[in-house]
Each structure stands twice: as structure tokens, then as C-alpha cells.
């Protein structure tokens, strides 16, 4: 898990933050002395000795309990130490999740064969970022497994621990703590900019499919890994979107990029009328042994608590999620019906969207490399846009700016979170960069400018102008970013 990064000079070694341990406990399960082990529902790494596990859990329990005396409704969320930082999250009543992250560090070699000096950079980690990562862990678990308490009600501690182990064993391997940043705090959704008419066509498509396939309860429509329509509620869509864009889609993108004769390329069915295929469920409908099993997801866990089959179907860059009541058995007949109904329409729609998008782009002029980079987020609709992040992949999300700048963005965000009023913060970074954060109503905009020898007034003017430029730049994109840049000054 330790990945050294070579810093300036040959000798120094830089270590990024990494996961030390991750555990879930419920104090009610072992309230008596000598029964402490019963509290522990999951513990990573598994090899840790039993007593140490009990000690660590006990410590967390004590800290939370202690801080509760000062703030009964809002106990400690994190504990800072020199070597690591611990994050606490009460995901459900009495169910606590704890994540321990080792602080980034620099290893400086010493002369004369002495052991190297280790410097922990304990201020480099931002609470809100890793706190959000921990909450995301829970949300992702809940999406595929339902709540802790339901599992406990259904099959006791045994079933719950079984589910936790099965899920987190794999999930923790995909946590890339070194590349977590502000976007993890937002957990936003990137919306695909689209003209009204094409959007209405998609509406029409979704409504018709839901009418024809009456089993389908909810539908979500994505294009180019960006959301266009969600029949799910916002919170459920948020986590499903995260799963789709960081896990499912990247896993399936490789075959599409692969050459025609590559073994990775999926079998193109004899039917060339459409390009539709299932990303979950049967890989090839023609296969007589095809399995019609789909992942199950849990939504609306606060009220109706629904368990659904997640069918993800894709044609070119358009992907549609159909969600069907899990009580229904999905068979070959249903999948064939869906394929023949949705495949041709979705293929057509995908090329329509592509064409419309290109027209809009042509109108708005050639895409110039802007003189600034930004992250935008709207708390109201979770709309997120970043020109700082490159394409997300299954493994890491790559940023195009220095981690120090990302750290500044995170700090500004923390400042914004502290007060409820509109704010604007301008920061001069150590390098020639200026970082500007703007918060207006429910929107946040972070801009990184690279201007040598600029002073505060110039930067302020530049950001004001930039809002105008932003407007022009996005005029044809009917995205919230436009509105915000318009209204950011409100």
C-alpha cells in the first residue's frame, strides 16, 4: 500500500496517505466486560491480533463518548495524531465505522548508516475529504446490501458480518486514498449538456420504454458517463452514479477501445441493426448458457426500502439503467424483449445526441484551452464540473494540478462550510498560482489562475472578467454552470 514518490533530490522519499485500518463495530453487541470482541463486526486488516482490535475499538468508543459530553449531538468526527488520522462515522444508530489513515511522510536518509529520519506531514490531510470517503464507503455498501440493521434483523450478527466481509474485502482495495480530494467531498454528478429538444426525446424514450416494459420501475439515462435523466431520487442517484462512473463503466470501456480483432472486444451479435448490449447480466444473449443474473441494489432505504435488479444497457456512449423489482425473476425472454426494444432506439438516440452535441460545439466555436482551471459544484442539484480532473478511471482520478493547490481548494472549502453566508476567498499560492473560491447561495466555484506577478486587485478583476468569459464559453451548454457563472455574483 505504500507508494513512494521521489521528491526533489535523490535521497528523499515521499509517502502518500494510505489506509492503515478500517473497522465497523456496534457497542450494543458486547456491552459486558470480556465480551468486547462481539462488538466488532468487521476489521481490516484481518491479521491484527484480537486484543489489539479490541483496544483500538475501545479507544474509538471512548473518544466518541468523551467528546459527546461536550457536544451531545455532534461528537468527534476525527482524531489527529502525529502518525495517523482516525475518522469516525455513525452510519446507523450505534453502528460505527472507523477509518484510520496514515499521514503522508517524507523519509530523509541519514549519513553513516543511521536509520532514516521520518517526517510526518500531519497537516496535509483534510478532514472533510476523508470523512466523505468514509461516508461513501457506507453508502456504497448500502446500495448493494441494504442497511446494517436490516441485515441484522434478517440473519443476526452472522449474516451481517458475512455481508460486510464480502463487500469490504474487495471494496477497500479500490480505495485510492492518495488521490482523494475536493470532489470526494462534493460527491457530485456531472450532467451532460444538452439542448431542450434532444432532452425531450430522451424523456419520451424513457417514458415509452417504461410503459412497454412495465416491470421497469426506475430509469436513469447517461451519455458519455454524464447523467441526463434520473428517475431515482437524488441521494440514490448520487451513489449509483459514483458506482457507474468509477467502477462499472471503466471496467467495460477497455473492450470498446480495443481493436476489432482484439479478444477483448465483445462478440458482435449477428444482428447489426443496433449496438446495444448489457453491461450487467448476460454478456451475450446468443450464448445458450447465458446467465440472467443482475446486481441488486437498495434504494429509498429511508422509507419504502426497495430492492431492485440493476440492468445497465449500453449502446455506443449512451447507457441506460433500468431498475426492476428484485422480487421478479428476470429471464431470457425479458432480456430479449428489452434488447430488441431498447437496442435500436438507443442506438438511434445515441447518434442523435452525438450529432446535436457536435452542432452545439460548433456554434460555440472551437474549444480553446482556457487560461484557468476550475471546479464547480451546486449543492442543490449536485451538479459538478471540473476542468482540473482528467478522465476518471477504475484505478485513480488524475488531476492536472499540483497537490498543494488541491490542498488549498480543500481548505477554502472547509472555510466555506463553516459559515452559511456567501463568501469569496482569494489565495496566493507558493508558486505563481492564484486560487479563488466563490460561494454564492448553494454554489461553489474554485478557480486556479496562473499569472505571474499579478496582484490581488488584478486577480480580482480577472475573476470578474472570467465570469463573463465563462458565460460565453458555455453559452450553448445548458448546464447549471452557466447559470452559476451568471448568478455567481448574486
Amino acid at each position: 500500500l505504500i507508494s513512494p514518490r521521489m521528491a526533489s533530490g535523490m535521497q528523499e522519499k515521499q509517502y502518500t496517505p494510505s489506509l492503515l485500518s478500517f473497522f465497523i463495530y456496534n457497542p450494543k453487541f458486547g456491552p459486558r466486560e470480556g465480551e468486547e470482541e462481539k462488538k466488532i463486526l468487521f476489521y481490516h486488516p484481518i491479521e491484527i491480533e484480537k486484543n489489539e482490535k479490541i483496544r483500538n475499538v475501545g479507544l474509538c468508543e471512548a473518544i466518541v463518548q468523551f467528546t459527546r459530553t461536550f457536544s451531545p449531538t455532534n461528537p468527534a468526527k476525527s482524531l489527529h495524531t502525529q502518525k495517523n488520522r482516525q475518522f469516525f462515522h455513525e452510519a446507523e444508530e450505534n453502528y460505527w465505522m472507523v477509518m484510520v489513515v496514515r499521514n503522508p511522510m517524507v523519509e530523509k536518509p541519514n549519513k553513516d548508516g543511521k536509520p532514516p529520519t521520518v517526517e510526518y506531514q500531519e497537516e496535509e490531510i483534510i478532514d472533510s475529504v476523508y470523512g466523505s470517503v468514509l461516508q461513501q464507503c457506507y453508502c456504497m455498501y448500502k446500495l448493494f446490501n441494504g442497511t446494517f440493521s436490516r441485515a441484522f434483523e434478517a440473519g443476526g450478527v452472522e449474516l451481517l458480518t458475512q455481508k460486510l466481509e464480502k463487500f469490504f474485502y474487495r471494496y477497500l482495495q479500490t480505495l485510492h486514498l492518495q488521490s482523494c480530494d475536493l470532489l470526494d467531498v462534493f460527491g457530485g454528478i456531472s450532467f451532460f449538456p444538452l439542448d431542450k429538444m434532444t432532452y425531450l426525446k430522451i424523456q419520451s424514450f424513457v417514458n415509452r420504454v417504461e410503459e412497454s416494459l412495465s416491470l421497469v420501475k426506475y430509469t436513469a439515462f447517461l451519455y458519455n458517463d454524464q447523467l441526463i435523466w434520473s428517475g431515482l431520487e437524488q441521494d440514490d442517484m448520487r451513489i449509483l452514479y459514483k458506482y457507474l462512473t468509477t467502477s462499472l463503466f471503466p471496467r467495460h470501456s477497455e473492450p470498446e477501445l480495443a481493436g476489432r480483432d482484439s479478444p477483448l472486444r465483445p462478440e458482435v451479435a449477428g444482428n447489426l441493426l443496433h449496438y446495444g448490449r448489457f453491461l450487467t447480466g448476460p454478456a451475450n444473449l446468443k450464448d445458450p448458457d447465458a446467465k440472467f443474473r443482475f446486481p441488486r441494489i437498495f434504494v429509498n432505504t429511508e422509507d419504502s426500502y426497495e430492492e431492485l435488479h440493476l440492468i445497465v444497457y449500453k449502446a455506443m456512449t449512451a447507457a441506460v439503467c433500468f431498475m426492476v423489482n428484485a422480487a421478479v425473476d428476470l429471464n431470457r425472454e425479458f432480456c430479449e424483449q428489452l434488447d430488441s426494444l431498447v437496442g435500436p432506439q438507443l442506438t438511434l438516440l445515441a447518434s442523435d445526441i452525438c450529432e446535436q452535441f457536435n452542432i452545439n460545439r460548433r456554434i460555440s466555436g472551437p474549444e480553446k484551452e482556457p487560461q484557468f482551471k476550475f471546479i464547480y459544484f451546486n449543492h442543490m442539484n449536485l451538479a459538478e464540473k471540473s476542468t482540473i480532473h482528467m478522465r476518471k478511471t477504475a484505478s485513480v482520478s488524475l488531476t492536472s494540478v499540483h497537490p498543494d493547490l488541491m490542498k488549498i481548494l480543500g481548505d477554502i472549502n472547509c472555510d466555506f462550510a463553516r459559515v452559511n453566508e456567501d463568501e469569496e476567498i482569494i489565495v496566493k499560492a507558493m508558486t505563481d498560482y492564484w486560487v479563488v473560491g466563490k460561494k454564492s447561495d448553494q454554489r461553489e466555484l474554485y478557480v486556479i489562475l496562473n499569472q505571474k506577478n499579478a496582484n490581488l486587485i488584478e486577480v480580482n478583476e480577472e475573476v470578474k472578467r472570467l465570469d463573463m468569459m465563462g458565460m460565453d464559453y458555455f453559452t450553448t451548454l445548458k448546464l447549471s454552470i452557466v447559470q452559476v457563472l451568471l448568478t455567481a455574483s448574486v
Partner: protein
Amino acid sequence: MSDEYYLELSENPVQFENASSVNNVFFDEANKQVFAVRSGGATGVVVKGPDDKSSVAFRMDDKGEVKCIKFSLGNKILAVQRTTKSVVLPDKRTLKLLKSQSINVNWYMYCPETAVLLLSTTVQGNVLQPFAFKSATVSKMSKFEIELPAVPKPAKLSLSERDIAVATIYDQLYVMYLKHHSRSTNSPGAEVVLYHLPREGTCRKTHVLKLNTTGKFALNVVDNLVVVHHQSSQTSLIYDIKLRELDGALNVHQPVLPARSINPYKIHLTGPAAAPSQAPVPCELYSSSWSVFQPDIIISASEGYLWYLQVKLQPTLNLLQDKGKLMDFLLRRRDCKMVILSVCSQMLTGGDKGNLSVVATVFDKLNQVYKEYLDAEQAYTAAMESGPSRSSTSYKRPVRTQAVIDQSDMYTHVLSDFTEKKGVKHKFIIAVLMEYIRSLNQFQIPVQHYLYELVIKTLVQHNLFYMLHQFLQYHVLSDSKPLACLLLSLESTYPPAHQLSLDMLKRLSTANDEIVEVLLSKQQVLGALRFIRSVGAHDNVSARKFLDAARQTNDTMLFYTIFRFFEQRNMRLNTLFTLIGHCEEHVAYFKQVFGENALMKQATA
């Protein structure tokens, strides 16, 4: 069953004395007048026309059997024919021969509406020579040949005038030929063949109406539909030549609807034998004494009735299952509006709930007609504005036919009821509303805000706020002040509506005052000030509003900031608080909190 009759006889027929041994009845197609001639005119001639004005009664001497009797247009001159070769005009008049043509003619047919005369020529009679009359000129149109089912040997007259009718359908002149079933051809039944007779150019065979049966037929044209009456089955069929059948270059048509009888009709017996209280008796339909005239007249000489044939549209709802075809059919009918609207209602709420793609097809068809009208209206307005100098004659104000179903019609008669209807799934309601909005957008028709309000109302009713949010995000519900205000009112149940509303007001760029009010009401005084400054209107706003709002926050620093801002502004503008608004109390408060010295000098002066 009674709601299945789609043809009926007019309620107010023209009544006349029935034909008998002493009473001869004549009909003049040009004036649509019935002449009842008693005893050769000696005991009276009663003329009844379609309205009272054209009705006349007079006497004339009995000079022998009357073969034919007519008025000229406007009832000016009466002409009576008593022998095959002479026509008498009771007043002394002279006739002048204007033009003559020499052709061997078997029979003739004259269409008064279009002033076209058809002459049957050649031995078989199937070469028709049309003439067009216009004011005082006669022009010969190009002749054409009717294809006979079989060529008789030796040649003899084979085309009877009984099998030919002339009528205007969709503003075009057609010669209709009733082509009887022939054993030599393997056609399963008789056909009506339509020859299009344009004002200029050649006549072409364009449509074939399949009757699928044999026997005696009669033709009418009603509301641009060809009606074929079949005597032996006592039913009628209707054909719409604009309903496309994909069958080669020549349009072969099947009946639009299954064969049905004309709606049963009851007549009141008249004459001395009939008591006034006597119940009406059923009229014998398809009687052999009926005479059928173009375009829509049926006369029963034996009973003394002249009816106009009418099409009832309501029954077509249940007889034509294909809703798209039904819409095509209805949109071309004269009195179609209410029927179309009831088709829409039925499609959405009736037992046979149509699926969305049918709904979409119907909406598209309606909006196509609606859009054509809007375009025509716009072109007319543009032409009028550009002045009458250019092309002044060619522009007539477009006629709004009943087929133009606008958004208000749909809202009032279909959609508002539909969204209130119990037992309809909200998913379907929203899908239908979105489909209608999609269709309007597709035809580039601006959507009225009350449709958006309907969408919002439905979404709010079912707590589908996230859906609403997404629609607004993609500007599916277009910006307007009423919509922004509606959103603002939703804020208590759905807080993000506040942002949506403000964004919308901002985009409208004509609602700056409203934005300031909204922000001040939320105690966002600085936000309001920043906004008003960003639009450059801060020199004109009333300071009092802002100071009031700032005082209400109980935040003295905020009050100080706001006060200072206006103080500076007023200094720049050379005005005093007292001059622009009644701000004395705020000045006093400022002095009280921050001291007299905090005031700028000019402001205190």
C-alpha cells in the same frame, strides 16, 4: 348501436308536395330548387329552395305536360320545357347564340358549382369532352377517355350518364365513374374511379375506390368524403381520398369505416288524414324512389322530402381503431374540433388507454396543423406590415379551421381534466404532458406557461421534486415570471425551488426588482446589494428598503455596511437620505449606535 350511424339526413329537410298523378316534381341542381307542378301548372307551381327566400309560388297556363322547369339564377327568368326540342320563357325574351360547337353528343352533364359541362362523345360514349364556362366565354378543355370494364362488340353506347358524377373534392374537380363489376375482369366488386379534371392540363385517372360488392349504387360527396350508397344492403360507405394507402402510383382506397346504414329517420305524416298528435313513422331509407344529386342531396319524390346528407363524426371514434388514421381523417373534416378533443380525452382516460407512442402520433398530427396555421398567420401579418404595395392581392388572412387545435383547447378540454382524473397513474400523466410539450417543441411552437404549471402541479402533488428540478435544469420548462413566482411559492416544501426561481428571474433579465425583493425578504441584504450593483442599477434603488431589511437582521455591522454604501452613493450623487426616501429614523439609529462622528460630513450637513 345508434351511435354507430355515421351518416344522417338533415334535420330540417325541404318539404314539398309529393309526386303523384296530378303533381309533377322537378329538381334544379343549379338553384337547388324543387318544383311541384300541379296539373301542368294550372292549379299552381310551388318552388321550394334551400331557404325561404328562394321559395316562390305561382300559376301558369296548362299547355301540356311539363318535361322540365327551371329558374335562371336569382329567379329572374323561368324556363319551361314541354317538348323535346323547345323551351318556353313565359315572358317574351330573346336569346342570342354566343358560340357554337359541333360535336356528336350522346348525353351531357353540367356541374353548376364549377360551371363545367361534360359531353359524352363517340359511339361507346366513353370519351368525355369537358367545357368550362366563365362569364361569357366557353373554353374547351382537353378530352379524356373513361376506361370501360369491357369493350362491347359490335361497338355500342356503353357509358351511361347514370354512372358519371362530377364533384369538387378538396377544391379539385373530379369526374367520378361508377365502374360496375364485370365478369371478364377478376375484380371482386364494383369500383368508383376518380378522374382528376384540372383547370388546365390533362385529365388523369387518380383514385380508385374499392366497393368490394356489386349491385346498385349512388354517389354523394359530403365534407370532401365520397359517400357510396348501396341499395341492396341498405348501407353506405365513405372514402377519403387523402387517406394514403401505400399501393403504387395510383391511390387505391378501401372504405374508411365499415359499411353502415344512414341513421334511421322518422317523418311526420302530413295531409288531412294525419292527426297532429300522430307519432312520426320511420322513413324508408334507400328507397327506390330516392334520387341522389351532387354533391349531398337526396330527394324522396314520393314522400316530398329533400334532405342534405351529413356526416356525424362522433361514431367514428369507436369504428376506427387506428388512432393515427382516425386523426388524419378527423383533421380534414369541417366540424371536427370537439370530436378531436374527445378522441384525445378518450385516448388518455378511456378504457382503451392508448399507449404513449399513439399519444405521441396524435399530438404530432394536431400540432402539425396548428403549426401550419401559425406560420400562415405569421406570414400574413408580416406581409401586412411590409405594406400593401407588395403582393397585396395574393395575401388573404388565413382561415382558422376547426382542425386548428391550440394549446388552450388542449388544456381546457383535455389535459386539465385528465390530470385531475382519479385512478390514472401519475407516471402516465407526466409522460403525456411531457409528450405534448415535446411535440410542441418539435414543431417550434412556443409553449404556454399554463402547461408548465400543469406539469409542476402534477409533480408537486406526487412529491416528485427531483424530477421537477431536472426538467428545470435542462430548461424544458421555459423561463417566465409566472413560473418563477410559482417556484418561489414551493420553497417551503422544496427549498431548492428558491435557487431555481432566482436563477430563472436572473435569466429573464427583466425581473431585477423581483430579485431584490426576494433577497431582501430572505434577509440577504448584502446579496441584494451585490446583485443590484452587478446590473448597474444601484444608483436608482431606494436606500430605505435596504436599510429596513438590514435593521431587521439585528446585525449592526451589516447595518453599518449598508448605511455606508448608501451614504457614499448619495454623496457621489449629491443627494441626502432625506431627499431620496424617508430615512431619518435610520440616520438617527446610526448616530445612536455608532456616534455622530461616524457620519460623513456631507451627509450630516
